[in-house]
């Protein structure tokens, strides 16, 4: 609710008076909906024929300034008539003393002064000459004086101050104090200690000493007065009870109101703008800091979101090492779960991770969100890192075969410099794992997911020549490392 509204109200009310004599100016705010024809004039038509609204004729004939006598036939202002009209129709609104009193309930004296200054700033003659109803495209669809709150259009007024951020639930002492404070509102006397005591009836110099040390006449006088006071109180209470008047005690309604409406916070019964309880503060005392994500200084700030912390604990890798790994998305599928509520689409992602030097991992994850599935799969791949067997750190041991479902992957060791003559998914796996010479055949099904799984299986199922030799009780020598002084590359 702004201070400027009464001025605006006056402007509109006066303008309306000029436009339609039937609408008499009133201090009570009103709104006058605009006729459809008025609004339709600003619309762009997409039809060749004129719209129905445009063909309608106005219910009121236009009142021309010439007919009002404000201008003469030559189009010049008729100053005399103009002045008369201005004084009659456009003059400042005169508030009656009752209206002023009503206004002073809403506005402070400074605001009322500002309103009056605003009224005085507008020249009534300008209103007569220039004031008109808006017909621009941005016109509001109704005339509004902004003085009244309209629930559909306006935001809800915030009548109460915002909740106290330092309010907390009352402890036992505070609750007792609050209860006494509430009970004190009811003039019962006995319960809350508001009754006068015997000490209150002795002169001030004896009030701090015990009763036994009072002089006899003072004590008698005090007792007499106190007795009279008690008698009077009892009589008053009896009378109140008979009359059923206020102060006759706490009624059930009071108790119910106490239970339902009394604030249990130390905010002094502050009323909220919302019927909902105020939200917890951002930093709840006693809880703040307990759930903060602990940042490991060893991470060197590389993992501010904490996405690597779990994998770090599981694998023992540092964040820097994890960031240095080669990762690559190999497969992205859209899978769906058919439920009675319909198909639930998910993304299924397979990732490969490796350090390019013998460590390799494959991770698969599903999620309804592709990004989440990708991140999960990547972390799973890092978690699943394990060493793969490599011959001379460049190729595999012999020919291995992996089979998953109908997909068979045949990997073959190849001499140095052969390169990776394999399909792209196997290529990425080899690159991540640090295999440089390899050929592969996928003779049967080439399903992407199964190709990756079968390759992983083949790489993990390489036989160790040393183990074979031990099993057969033979000694094994790699002659490539014997001839030419071992320099075979």
């Amino acid at each position, binding site marked *: 609710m702004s201070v400027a509204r009464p001025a605006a109200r006056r402007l509109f009310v006066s303008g309306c008076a000029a436009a339609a004599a039937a609408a008499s100016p009133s201090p009570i705010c009103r709104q006058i909906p605009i006729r459809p024809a008025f609004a339709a004039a600003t619309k762009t038509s997409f039809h060749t024929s004129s719209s129905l609204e445009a063909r309608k004729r106005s219910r009121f004939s236009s009142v021309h300034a010439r007919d009002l006598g404000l201008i003469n036939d030559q189009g010049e202002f008729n100053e005399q008539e103009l002045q008369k009209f201005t004084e009659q129709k456009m003059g400042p609104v005169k508030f009656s003393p009752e209206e002023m009193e009503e206004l002073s309930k809403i506005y402070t004296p400074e605001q009322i002064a500002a309103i009056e200054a605003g009224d005085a700033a507008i020249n009534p003659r300008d209103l007569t000459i220039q004031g008109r109803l808006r017909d621009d495209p941005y016109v509001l669809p109704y005339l509004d004086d902004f003085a009244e709150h309209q629930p559909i259009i306006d935001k809800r007024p915030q009548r109460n101050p915002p909740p106290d951020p330092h309010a907390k639930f009352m402890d036992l002492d505070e609750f007792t104090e609050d209860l006494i404070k509430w009970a004190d509102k009811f003039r019962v006397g006995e319960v809350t200690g508001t009754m006068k005591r015997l000490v209150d009836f002795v002169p001030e110099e004896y009030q701090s000493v015990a009763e036994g040390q009072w002089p006899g006449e003072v004590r008698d006088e005090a007792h007499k007065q106190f007795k009279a006071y008690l008698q009077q109180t009892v009589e008053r209470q009896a009378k109140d009870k008979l009359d059923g008047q206020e102060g006759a005690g706490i009624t059930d309604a009071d108790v119910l109101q106490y239970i339902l409406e009394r604030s249990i916070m130390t905010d002094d019964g502050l009323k909220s703008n919302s019927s909902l309880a105020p939200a917890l503060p951002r930093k709840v005392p006693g809880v703040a800091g307990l759930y903060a994500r602990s940042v490991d200084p060893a991470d060197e700030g590389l993992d501010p979101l904490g996405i690597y912390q779990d994998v770090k604990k599981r694998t023992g890798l540092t964040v820097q090492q994890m960031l240095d790994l080669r990762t690559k998305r190999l497969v992205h599928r859209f899978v769906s779960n058919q439920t009675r509520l319909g198909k639930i689409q998910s993304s299924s992602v397979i990732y490969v991770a490796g350090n390019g030097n013998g460590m390799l991992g494959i991770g698969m994850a599903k999620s309804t969100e592709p990004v989440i599935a990708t991140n999960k799969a990547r972390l799973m791949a890092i978690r699943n890192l394990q060493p793969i067997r490599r011959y001379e750190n460049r190729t595999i*041991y*012999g*020919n291995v075969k992996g089979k998953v479902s109908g997909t068979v992957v045949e990997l073959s060791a190849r001499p140095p410099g052969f390169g990776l003559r394999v399909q792209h998914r196997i290529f990425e796996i080899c690159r991540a794992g640090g295999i440089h010479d390899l050929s592969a055949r996928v003779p049967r099904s080439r399903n992407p997911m199964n190709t990756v799984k079968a390759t992983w299986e083949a790489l993990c199922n390489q*036989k160790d*020549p040393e183990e*074979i030799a*031990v*099993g*057969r009780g*033979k000694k094994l020598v790699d002659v490539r490392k014997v001839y030419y002084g071992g320099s075979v590359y």
Partner: protein
Amino acid sequence: MPMHSITNACAHLQNATRARLGLTSLPNTKYVLRLALAMHRAGLISSVTRGGPTPPPPEALLTTETEPVTTANVANRRLWIGLKYWNNQPVMSKLQPVSKPSRRVTATIPELAKVARGFRAGHLLGLNVGELMFISTDKGVLEIREALEKKSGGLVLCRVS
């Protein structure tokens, strides 16, 4: 020479290792015995003992014969083969006959040399890591590397890995 006993022996040994048996028996023929001894030289099996229809006692496995072969017991003699396992895996997991009664496969020395180095020679695929091939030559049943050492080719019996 009866090929079927060799192919049957291959099939039986493969079944026995997959069943994780410690001891199994083969028919007592000269051909099977030579193959078994070649496998023993290659370290694929732990023992070859000629015994009766029941398994010989464990101490008898260290000998070649539990009792002398006579005309009375020769008909029920069997070759008892001790199978080997390492790291919970059979040392000999796959036995694949190459020659079969209907189709004998022979290989010359150059062919065997290629196969031993892992290259293909005709219809013979190259050997993989840890793979063995047994050849029946005029110097007895030999492993492919022994045959190359002795420069003799012959009938390719089976490949074992």
